[in-house]
């Protein structure tokens, strides 16, 4: 198979999954199986592309010219190959999980749900493989619009207003800041293509670079930096498979991925290090990390707590991009993988607890540890990975981020990362402690939903296993980042 054909196939497969799900909408088992099949196909393609990138192959396809210097083109970068690998592999597990969750929770409109779920994956893959900033923007918007029906899935007043907030923040910021920033880059350089080392150096007035960075980081609302983070907790009204795959992996990672791509392939780390235009962003990211960790502690609702934890973790990646040193960028890119694995585990567990025991709050988890041992086991693995305890995969990215901040002589940042880890321990492990130590007199009726239990166990164990194979990913990451 030729390389360009692989790209088309990979991007189209989720759309076919959506189409077949619609055609087979009257047969529930057949309908839901297309998610798994689609996940397997895209995963194999992503894996092949990932290996191809490691062997310096070029994956590129151009369809047509949109306007001067900007084509509708896909070109897989090293960063993109990682993101697509994460999104597609987790899609397989999430599809299995979705079957268990949606049926266990008795949700309505399941066909609409799977269709938009697949379209969202399609958009995420296209973002990963986009060849220039405008193509990325197009699929960024498609991702927003395709996840809107998922956020508003329950169709009650709460999800309506959450959906409205979700859409207005994400589309609003992208139209007010992101798109004008893209125009600006195009007007100054005449191109929007992703190139190693960036395209702005010697082309863009250095004194305005800080403003451009600000427009980008606030325009890419999916990266959820404060004060543009409100949509993420609001989106938690969606069914848990959405929170798990989309609001811990595909959507938010698409946001930080976009920002990372802009820093690495558009602005260029070298230009950033010369001008120090992103140093202010380091502090904003630190503020977001601390503030959202503190908010997370106050949340009793498990999903809300995880949402604020996500906001905090996303800012790690923005922090790494803002530091722009090679170690920090390595850590930031790697954090896309590690946080995805850890956070999807936690969300899977939160959903599984809801489906089996109908509990949403941390304080009601008393004694549940003994009743749901597998779920709590998986949860602990995921939490430890996010905290950054060796031997879990999350420790690598945190290690590189701290090294990166020391490399740039931001010692305070390294200290803040340490404090944040302590806060992580508190708010992520508290449910486990409550679950195993306190005894509840309340009788809880358990419903069995095995399909929601095994996916988190698999992702949780892989957090442990991949610690030892981190080089497999890190090679790809460091290959692209210009030191």
């Amino acid at each position, binding site marked *: 198979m030729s390389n360009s054909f692989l790209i088309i196939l990979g991007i189209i497969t989720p759309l076919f999954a959506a189409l077949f799900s619609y055609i087979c909408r009257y047969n529930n088992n057949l309908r839901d199986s297309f998610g798994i099949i689609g996940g397997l196909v895209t995963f194999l393609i992503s894996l092949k592309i990932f290996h191809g990138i490691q062997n310096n192959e070029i994956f590129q396809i151009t369809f*047509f010219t*949109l*306007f001067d210097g900007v084509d*509708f083109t896909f070109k897989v970068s090293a960063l993109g190959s990682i993101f697509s690998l994460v999104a597609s592999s987790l899609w397989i597990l999430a599809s299995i999980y979705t079957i268990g969750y949606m049926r266990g929770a008795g949700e309505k409109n399941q066909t609409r749900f799977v269709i938009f779920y697949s379209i969202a994956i399609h958009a995420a893959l296209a973002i990963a493989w986009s060849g220039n900033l*405008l193509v990325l*923007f*197009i699929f960024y*918007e498609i991702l927003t619009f395709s996840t809107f*029906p998922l956020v*508003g899935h329950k*169709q009650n007043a709460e999800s*309506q207003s959450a*959906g*409205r907030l979700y*859409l*207005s923040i994400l*589309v*609003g910021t992208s*139209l*007010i*800041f992101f*798109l*004008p920033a893209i*125009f*600006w880059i195009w*007007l100054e350089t005449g191109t929007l293509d992703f190139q190693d080392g960036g395209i702005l150096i010697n082309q863009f007035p250095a004194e305005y670079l800080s403003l451009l960075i600000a427009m980008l980081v606030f325009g890419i609302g999916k990266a959820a930096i404060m004060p543009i983070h409100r949509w993420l907790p609001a989106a938690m009204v969606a069914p848990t498979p959405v929170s798990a795959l989309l609001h811990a992996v595909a959507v938010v990672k698409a946001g930080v991925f976009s920002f990372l791509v802009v820093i690495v392939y558009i602005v260029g780390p070298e230009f950033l290090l010369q001008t120090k235009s992103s140093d202010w962003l380091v502090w904003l990211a630190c503020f977001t990390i601390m503030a959202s960790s503190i908010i997370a502690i106050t949340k009793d609702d498990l999903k809300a707590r995880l949402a604020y934890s996500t906001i905090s973790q996303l800012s790690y990646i923005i922090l790494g991009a803002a530091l722009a040193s090679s170690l920090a960028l390595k850590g930031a890119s790697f954090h896309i993988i590690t946080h995805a694995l850890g956070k999807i585990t936690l969300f899977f567990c939160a959903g599984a607890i809801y489906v089996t025991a109908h509990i949403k709050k941390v304080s009601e988890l008393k004694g549940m540890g003994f009743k749901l041992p597998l779920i709590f086991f998986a949860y602990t693995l995921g939490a430890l990975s996010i905290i950054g305890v060796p031997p879990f995969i999350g420790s690598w990215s945190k290690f590189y981020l701290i090294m990166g901040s020391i490399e740039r002589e931001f010692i305070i940042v390294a200290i803040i990362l340490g404090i944040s880890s302590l806060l992580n321990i508190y708010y992520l492990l508290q449910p486990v402690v409550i679950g195993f130590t306190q005894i509840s007199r309340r009788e809880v009726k358990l419903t069995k939903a095995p399909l929601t239990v095994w996916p988190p166990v698999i992702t949780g164990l892989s957090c442990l296993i991949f610690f030892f194979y981190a080089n497999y990913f890190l090679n790809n990451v460091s290959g692209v980042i210009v030191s």
Partner: protein
Amino acid sequence: MFDIFLDDAAALVVVLPLLISAIIAFMPSKIWPWIISLVTLVLHLVLSLHLLKEISISGLIIYEFGNWEPPWGISFKIDGVNIGLQLLFSIFVLISTFYSRKIFLSEIDSRDSGKAYSLWLLAIGSLNGIILTNDIFNLFVFLEISALASISLIALGAGQNRKALLAAFNYLIIGAIGATFYVIGVGFAYAMTGTLNMNDLVIQLAQYSDGQLAIFAGMSFMLIGLMVKAAIFPVHIWLPPAYSYAPSAVSTLLAALATKTILYFFVRLLYEVFIIYPSYLSLFLDFVLYPLSLLAIFIGTLIAIYQDDIKKLLAFSSIAQIGYITLAFSLKDHSGITSGFIHIFNHALIKGGLFMAVGYFAILYKDRVTLSSLRGFGYKYPITSFALLICGLSLIGLPLTNGFISKLYLFQALYTNQMYFSIALVAVSSALAVAYFWKIVEQMWFYEIKFKSEKEDAYIYLPIWIITVSIIFFGIYSSPIIEFSNLSADYLISGYQN
């Protein structure tokens, strides 16, 4: 035999609809007026294509009526500036006429069909005259014919809602004031120069090179009159009720083309004639048109957000969009004029598509379309709803639609003129456009309400989809529109430099 007709193509595109309009006025049949109009407009399109061919060879056609030479007789002028608009006009009227039949059938008394199509052709002929005429008084005549025809068409909406009469009356009074202003200005110009022909006017005005108060007064009267007619903020108040109470087919025609043709003449007058007083022109553009455009963009968008009636919402959005066009025209350079023309083309398609879709919904709902009345339409009428969604995304200006191309070139023009405040304002108001458009989408797809629905009518959704496909087509392959707009700007700017 056809050669005889083709020689007079420039006159026939205006005269043919006007003639046929008189013939079908008293036809009692329900369907023949429509068929005859359709055939007329197919011929109209053929004539326009012939004009395009001629222009691509010679670059300029001056058609003298009755062979009276220009300073004395009336003449039409076709050149690079208006050929693109002529083509768009021709294609769009054909599509909207095809669309109009079923709409008219259910909105007006079927016995009035002949009258409706007579007025319809009258409006089309006179609006086409505005595009082609090279004579400032002749323009006044076409303005008046088109206004009277549109007013009567709007008043036909009275069968649905009596407020249509009030809207038509408002338009009549305000339109008459605008026309009076314009004709007073023409009077001043004629008194000073003794000519009405636009090319000759430029030559004659040159003798007052230091300027004369009477000429400035005349120019101001003409511009204000045209601003009223083109619904430029704040003299736009006739437009929202007129568009929203007219029969749906009529609002489609008016929203897509009526203000656009007048805007075209407005910019032609500015850059072809008034350009010989650069200081007056830049005074008008910088201190009148530019701030008014910004206000139009912002206030039009804000008012649209708070509308419950969909047609009114679209009408206020039109006020904002006209603001984008005049903002581009106020920039005084090639990039600005180009982007203004690009948006004239693109917005005609977008608004035409939106009004067509909403017009169809009005018929299905059998009442005025408000936000809540659209509930569940996304599921019941998916074909039309999906077209509406695409047109709306284009209105917001998302990539792969032609609205994005408009926005891109507007940003570029503003950027080269270093108008950063305007860029910010345009960015913010295009994000606000999401707010009013998304309210519609939300109602259509996120409430499910059980009601009896009919099958969608291919006669209606076919033209809607032709427009929708063209919106995507010109979003991906934008060079035809950009080239026509470049051509228009080239011709106008060459006058600017000489």
